[in-house]
């Protein structure tokens, strides 16, 4: 969800006038909004899910980012070179295999261009060298991603419609109205395909978000949870944390099996960090077993979260990215992905 921070590390925080602003009341249209929005500063296609294999469940995540570097108007418009970095495409993928006890992951980054790195406008088709995520003519989504140690070739068949997060896809991320993104999710995608050449099945979740102005300057990190519930419902919860461990903002939604959508306000969510696990590599401590509470139809629900393995830390600092924890989790009556950031060193922006 808030993977935009990765890109905020790659671009200055100052709001530049030449990025498209996020405004409420802009209706999302499909399939155009499956495609890229190159006028916004940053954008991502984020697929997470769990695969059922003979060795038990395995988690996976595939993320493509697009960012428009803050070049300043002189370069972006005046330099006719095909190499001018008008857009940068960045991707990473990880497999959570409890048998391996830690993540296998890989990343790609390149300037958009030459057909090697492209994010199509009009429909979903993001390419980065040999990695690709696209929507086929049959309406299914496809992902092909491989690197040393893993190979994913998956097709995602929608079983439900998309969830427009926030106010019809306008999702607040902070106390100021411009701290927001355009945000939709696509839960309960039926997965079929191959992991390392072996056929697998499972369920997945797509998060799509684009924005030019996202986070409050006081934010040090965030927590995010997306769950496919066994009864066909979908639960999204997130909070943006301040330096004192409190929430600057919180939000999310619940959609039941029949399609009734409840959008949460900040006061509808309580997130208790718990189940601390310390990474032997980074020495960072992560609350990998949080207990989340949300108020649905006036009643508070309590949901203890359990990761399929504690070590799902991903350190991309060597490549200029952040240190974060992103892993497959279970809850009573559902499963999905949990993302934690800003727990190691506070995220500097």
């Amino acid at each position, binding site marked *: 969800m808030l993977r935009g921070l990765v890109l905020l*590390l*790659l*671009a*200055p925080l100052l709001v530049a006038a030449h990025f498209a602003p996020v405004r409420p009341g802009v209706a999302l249209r499909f399939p155009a909004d499956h495609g890229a929005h190159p006028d916004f500063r940053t954008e991502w296609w984020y697929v997470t899910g769990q695969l059922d294999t003979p060795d038990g469940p395995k988690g996976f995540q595939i993320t493509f980012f697009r960012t428009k*570097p*803050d*070049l*300043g108007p*002189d*370069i972006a418009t*005046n*330099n*006719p*070179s*095909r*190499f*001018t*970095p008008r857009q*940068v495409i960045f991707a990473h993928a990880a497999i959570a295999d409890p048998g391996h006890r830690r993540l296998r992951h890989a990343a790609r*980054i*390149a*300037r958009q261009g*030459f*057909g*090697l790195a492209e994010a199509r406008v009009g429909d979903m088709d993001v390419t980065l*060298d040999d990695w690709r995520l696209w929507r086929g003519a049959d309406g299914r989504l496809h992902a092909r991603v491989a690197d*040393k140690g893993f190979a994913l070739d998956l097709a995602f068949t929608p079983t439900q419609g998309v969830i427009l997060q926030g106010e019809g896809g306008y999702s607040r991320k902070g106390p100021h109205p411009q701290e927001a993104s355009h945000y939709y999710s696509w839960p309960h995608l039926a997965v079929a395909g191959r992991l390392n050449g072996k056929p697998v099945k499972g369920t997945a979740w797509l998060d799509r978000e684009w924005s030019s102005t996202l986070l409050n300057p006081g934010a040090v990190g965030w927590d995010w949870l997306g769950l496919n519930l066994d009864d066909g419902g979908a639960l999204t919860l997130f909070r943006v944390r301040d330096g004192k461990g409190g929430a600057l903002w919180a939000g999310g939604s619940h959609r039941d099996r029949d399609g009734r959508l409840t959008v949460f306000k900040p006061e509808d969510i309580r997130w208790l960090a718990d189940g601390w696990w310390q990474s032997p590599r980074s020495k960072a401590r992560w609350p990998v077993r949080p207990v989340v509470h949300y108020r649905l139809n006036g009643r508070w629900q309590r949901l203890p979260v359990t990761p399929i393995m504690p070590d799902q830390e991903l350190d991309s600092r060597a*490549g*200029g990215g952040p240190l974060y924890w992103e892993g497959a989790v279970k809850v009573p009556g559902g499963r999905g992905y949990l993302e934690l950031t800003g727990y190691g060193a506070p995220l500097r922006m």
Partner: protein
Amino acid sequence: MASFNPVATRWLLAGEWRAGPARLAIAVLAIAVGVALGFAVHLVNTAALDSFGRAIASVSGRADLAVRGRTPAGFDELLYPRIARLPGVAGASPVVELAASWGQLARPGSKARGGRLALIGVDPLRAMGVTPGLVGIASAGQSGVGSRPGWRADAVFLSPALARAAGVAPGDGFTITAAGQQSRLHVAGLLRGAGDDAQLAVIDIAEAQARFGQLGRLQRLDLRLAEGADVAAAQRAIAAALPADALLSAPEAEASRADALSRAYRVNLGMLALVALLTGGFLVWSAQALSVARRRPQFALLAVLGLPRQGLVVQLLVEALLLGVLGAALGLALGHVLATLVVDHFGGDLGGGYFSATHARLAFPPLVALFFGGLGLLTALAGSIVPALAAARQAPALALKGLGEVPDPARPPRAWPGLALLGAGVLAALGPPIAGLPLLGYAAMALLLAGGVALMPALARGLIRPLLGVRAVPVDLALRRLWGSPQAASLALSGIVASTALMVAMAVMVASFRQSVDDWLVAVLPADLYLHLEAAEAGGLQPADQARLAAVPGIAAIRFQRVQPVRLDPARPALALMAQEGAAAVPVLSRAAGAPPAGAAPVIVSEAMAWLYGWKVGDVRELVIGGQPRRLFVAGVWRDYARQWGAVIMPMADYRRFTGDASATEAAIELAAGADAAAVQSALMAALPAAVHGQAQFGRPSDMRRVALQIFDRSFAVTYALEAIAILIGLAGVATSFSAQVLARLKEFGMLRHVGLARGQVLAMLAAEGAGLGLVGALTGVALGLAMALVLVKVVNPQSFHWTMDLALPWPLLGALVAALVLCAGGTALIAGRRALGRGAVLAVRADW
């Protein structure tokens, strides 16, 4: 070693040292100088080559494989995605690479600061995975890729060596000129991985394309192959996908290209050092033979006391070993000191001009030291083995009485071994190069030298025979002595013959080369004024600039030239493609008879081109120009001393038609009658675009000739030094062997005095003998030297550098050399004689038989 007796050795050596410390010292020194030269040349070469290799590796970023443009124009950038998608290619990093400069490139005599550099444009996101060394780290400590302070269009990252040379630090401005464009950049940080050898600046690839006129073009694609990929298959697939103006280049080819650049020059220096060592060997032989002759009674005494003959040989060889060890150790120390001095004062290329921008570092490689030291030892042993065997053969009883085996004057000395060696030398000189090097040519020189020395006794007799019968008693005595014992003469002379021959050979070769270069300079510089843009391989003067220059008043004619390197073979340095307006002003050696066939552009190729690529007059060949192979008709071959790796001159019109490149990098200007050259030059400078002011170098033929010959002389400075050392050693050898022989002949002088010769007459006899010996040695040495010079000029040089030269004989130098040798030999004999006769020669006769 049962026959080895340390007491005897100590006794013999100590006696020898007391008898003639100078002779032993000269022998040691001769070995030392040979070893020192060989070792020093090797050290300096290795250091220079290493540093050059490191610089190349820095600029090329140590990729697995690279696709390179054949010319600085590069290739279409759309090749990049095609190559990147090939199976087996895990990473492809597009690169813009331009010859560039900063500041004011130094003109001869000016103190302006400036220099050449390689300007590299990379996409850091791609380079990170292929050539991380080319990714700059901003001084803020973050990656230069879109990180804070964000994209800076004018950010440049410098290699530490360049930052130091230019005196700039992160945060400073830095102006770079390339391809006729000038750009003010901002130093964002240093390339920590670039080391101390490369003059290298890295900017963003999009900026490199836009700022320096390279839109749509790349010069290089750095590639990383997938782990476990079939390298040969991947290379084949890549090569198959390449257009005509790109070629695939593996790092080995790059290394071999760097090596080839100076290989012949280095091998030549190394060979000269070995020849010096060979001269040292002859000096050792001469010294040992003399000392053996002098110590015959000692050896006889030892034999009588029970030392077996074999033991005597061992004793003498141990002596030689000690001399050799001493000489080798001294030589290694001397060589290291010499190499340090050379690197500090001349730079790593010994003045050869091959590695201009690099800073060499010296090491002390033990294996190499062992090799050269061993060579010195071997020389000492080889020089001693013949005299040692001779000493062991003699009959002790006779020798004890001082009647060692005296050769019978009636029996003529054998000539066939010397003749055989000379014949072998001639045969070797006719041989082809081996591995591109004139190794057989050097073998020929060594054989000629050995043959000449072996022929000495017979030759001396032949030279003296016509002089027999001179009426003056002292001269007659001297001549008869020389005629009667030519072996003794050749012993004394072998060292001087060898060093004279070496010196004459080098002097004649250098004189021929210099004369040919001088003639060539006159031929290639017919205009009044020349303009050259340095570091402008990627382009310089545009048509508008050319028109502006042509309109400068005072010019009768201006002819532009576009010079561009072209790679034909990835393992060889690029050849020069020179597009010229008007008729080529070069010394043409041969011309094609017919007219060019239809569709082929007429070109004139240099001797090196003809030699390296087999382009013959009348051939039609293909060369990739402007992205396509073009048919070229070889209309002539010209002599070129400036471009060792080949040059092709073609008409400017054809070049422009092929490439669409209308730029020029050089101009030859003829002044109108009465025009002032200096005024025209400043008017031309003012008419030049500001961007290339720092690269523009004007020259007048006389100055250019002077500078060129200065450079020539500087690059042969090492050779001159080598010659001087060889001749000094040779003279010292003559002096010591003469005094030894004179001392050995004390009894003879006493006898002559007894039969009534005046002291002055004996001295005159000695002087005449010395002068005669000197003359024989000098003439033989000169003759031998001329033969060796012929090998150097006609075999070694063409095979090393692929150019020919006309033989020129420096007669005054040769005459002076002969005179100096005669005088020196006669004078030495005289001085030795005076000393000997002063000590009561008459008494010597009384010595007990």
